[in-house]
């Protein structure tokens, strides 16, 4: 089960980025998977560099987080690019963000090549724990904890902070908040950057446990969409619940009857679409 939760934690970060950007900007960002992949590659490079520069090994998580956050700097220029399509048909959004997916794939190939990229030793630095007969790497728990903390942080941020209130107001009614003096350009740039950061931090955090491959983003984006459909488009709590459901469904399918691993997830997706088309935690749509 912990395997499922681990997967869910990563999935949540990517799906949350997708949700946030859609909720506020009404942009369905296919490239959120690419941010995840970029974060992973950037994380490997940053940690390798930092360890080479004499950083004590157990601190590598800090470097990973830092790398993920630093990479979010690509957010504002990308948001500037997306600004050209805010008022156009959804198909333009899909085309543009899909173009970004392809471009980032080439960027990765250009800088890091095509072979899998990884951190050799880092995964087991924190050791392993024996939980109920199976061995679990402590790092998996670190990732789960980080996912949970970020979820809590996001919840607090959206519900309590001043900027969170502005974000929610914008999501509810863009014209009204603009009329009340909210600078939409800045809010959009910040929200988008935050969305990018969720993806890049997710990618950077997961990398010690896996290897960075060029297609890792594409793989996750499909699942992130399943999460979004289950949880309800644009809802943070939905992303959290959806990620948990998908992660746990997959893990239990693999444990019980592996042939239905993908089927199980999509059975849930279809049931949600039929029984509660707007998702489990959908907001009342305006």
């Amino acid at each position: 089960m912990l395997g499922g939760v681990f997967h869910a934690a990563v999935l949540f970060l990517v799906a949350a980025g997708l949700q946030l950007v859609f909720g506020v900007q009404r942009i369905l960002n296919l490239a959120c998977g690419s941010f995840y992949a970029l974060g992973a590659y950037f994380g490997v490079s940053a940690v390798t560099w930092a360890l080479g520069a004499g950083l004590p090994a157990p601190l590598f998580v800090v470097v990973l987080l830092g790398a993920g956050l630093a990479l979010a700097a690509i957010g504002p220029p990308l948001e500037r690019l997306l600004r050209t399509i805010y008022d156009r048909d959804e198909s333009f959004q899909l085309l543009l963000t899909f173009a970004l997916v392809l471009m980032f794939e080439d960027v990765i190939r250009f800088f890091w090549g095509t072979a899998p990229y990884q951190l050799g030793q880092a995964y087991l630095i924190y050791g392993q724990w024996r939980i109920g007969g199976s061995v679990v790497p402590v790092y998996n728990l670190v990732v789960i904890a980080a996912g949970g903390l970020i979820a809590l942080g996001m919840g607090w941020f959206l519900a309590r902070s001043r900027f969170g209130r502005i974000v929610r107001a914008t999501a509810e009614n863009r014209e009204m908040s603009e009329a009340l003096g909210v600078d939409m350009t800045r809010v959009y740039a910040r929200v988008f950057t935050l969305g990018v950061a969720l993806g890049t931090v997710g990618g950077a955090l997961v990398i010690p446990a896996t290897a960075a491959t060029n297609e890792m983003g594409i793989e996750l984006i499909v699942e992130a969409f399943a999460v979004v459909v289950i949880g309800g488009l644009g809802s943070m709590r939905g992303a959290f619940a959806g990620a948990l459901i998908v992660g746990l469904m997959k893990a239990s399918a693999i444990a019980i009857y592996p042939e239905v691993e993908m089927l199980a997830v999509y059975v849930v997706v279809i049931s949600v679409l039929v029984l509660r088309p707007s998702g489990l935690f959908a907001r009342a749509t305006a």
Partner: protein
Amino acid sequence: MRTTRRGFLALSGAASVAAALRLDAAPALAQAGPVKIGVLAAKAGVLAPVGESGMRGVQWATDRINATGGILGRKIELVIEEESSPKDTVERFRKLALQDKVDVISGAISTGVGLALGPVAEEMQTIWLAWDATTQKGVEESMPKPKYSFRSTDNECEAVMASILTARSWKGKFRTVAGINPDYSYGRDNWAAFLAIMKKSGIEVQVVSELWPKLGATDFTAHVAALQQAKPDLIFSCFWAGDTPIFMKQAHAAGLTQSTKLVMTTGGGVHESLKKAFTPEGALLGYNCMYFEHPKASPLMKEFVRWHQEKFKEWPNYESDHGYFTVVAYKAAVERAAKAAGGKWPSIDQVIQALEGVEVESLSGSRRYREDHIMEATFFQGFTTHKNKHDFVTIDPLESMGTKQIQKPSGVGLYDWINSWKV
């Protein structure tokens, strides 16, 4: 240096003889201009590293041939296109044949693509020399008598070899087995071949888990947990791409690799990513048809490995050998056919005839095409060791088996063939 008069005369004499010879030779070879070789190399997704590796073999062969006068005096020119989905790759194959008018097409790794390219090569009447792609449906050949397509070794060769080695080394030392293989024909067929050979070898195994992650998956924590529950004595896997190190790392972190025997039929394809930190010693690891650190490597292989390491800072893997072989085999066939045709540039039918049974020195040793257009090569596997100068595992001792031993003969079904073995 001072040029003496006598020396100068001798030199110019030799030069004019050479020039005269060239003049004589040129019309005899009819075609002028370069020989065009179309290349289909994967550049995106899971296949990208493999496609790049094959491309390096082709490039190296081409550079060497061009540096020594080309094929019968004609330089090779490469026209590179991408291998992607079967449909798009077929379009590019047509483009290479019709628009670029290439003499031969080399490339393609995926059997899904190969199945689509085979009939197109026949239709376009263009010679196609596959790298790793076959025209197999499952374990059966779908084009038993092709004319223009020449394809790779059977997909299940590495599983056959690994199974023979497993039976030889571990018979009586395991009973429960689990398989974790990518969820497509390659994964399913290799697992089935493994089980069939265990049975034939008189090893009674109990399958405790069969896992089929998607090709290109990057998270196996749930699979590893399922394997922990199943507690197999032996795990069989034919992962060959980026999924290999990820699975290995996550299995190691969960303590799965210490007590379990591991059979990785094709993981040597990404050998540099199998770091010592998480890859155990004593696992059976297959390198397909080239092992970069062969203790008795030929001078050719040593030269290639050195060039590869200097240029790319990487140790080459087997796909380079497939790529290299196709170019060198084509050159040998053209030369052989030209000889038979009295020195004229041969027709396509003559080249095809010469390709059948052609045998050349490739990077990994001697390789050839069978008369039914299927590649023959030597496969390399062995048990992993940490005793080397790298940060990744290598194998020692090295076991090698030829396709005569591990590939089903022409026109025989895989399982009939396995059942006909005398064990």
